[in-house]
């Protein structure tokens, strides 16, 4: 009984985090800001919903698969977002208003050696 209340809370809060990430994708002003919303809020939403599943279904296969998805999301979400942010900065995507500094623009090392060949 109490387990079901906890699982329902996890389910509702996870979907609310995903909704917040979607609002951020619509509302924020440029690519890098949207990346902030996706990397943090959406991955936390997925983790909360997986916790809800593993609370309701007490099977070791469910637990192992949920743990796999959680570990994979935690490891790869920052890597993917930083790859896309780097590519967007190399291709000089327009930035939103209000930027006060950009020290990566001034530095002359955005192309590493391995990308050139």
């Amino acid at each position: 009984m109490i387990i079901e209340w906890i699982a329902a809370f996890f389910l509702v809060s996870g979907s609310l985090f995903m909704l917040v990430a979607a609002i951020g994708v619509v509302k924020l002003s440029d690519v890098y800001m949207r990346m902030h919303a996706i990397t943090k809020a959406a991955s936390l939403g997925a983790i909360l919903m997986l916790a809800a599943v593993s609370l309701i279904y007490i099977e070791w296969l469910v637990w192992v698969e949920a743990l796999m998805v959680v570990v994979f999301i935690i490891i790869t979400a920052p890597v993917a977002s930083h790859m896309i942010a780097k590519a967007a900065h190399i291709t000089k995507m327009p930035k939103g208003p209000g930027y006060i500094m950009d020290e990566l623009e001034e530095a002359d090392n955005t192309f590493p050696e391995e990308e050139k060949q």
Partner: protein
Amino acid sequence: MEFAASPVLTYAIYFSFFALTISLFMGLYRLLTGPTLPDRIVVMDLVASVSIGLIINYIMATGQTVFLNVAVAIALLVFMGNIAFAKYLIRRIEK
């Protein structure tokens, strides 16, 4: 749909389906109006997370835990897609 859960969980599942559908439509808006290509790649990431959520809701509603494999596959594939898109963006500007 036949719900195999208790009333509390049923209402939670209804609400969750509602919120996830709204966030899919918001992603569709950004996909159609996004000014540049990286905006659309960000939407791909969002849609992947939302579809993991939809699969989990379906599991909670019907009790078929086999579909958790699909969540594993989506979590694996989206990372590959992101890396491939980033590489493609860098290659395209070099031409």
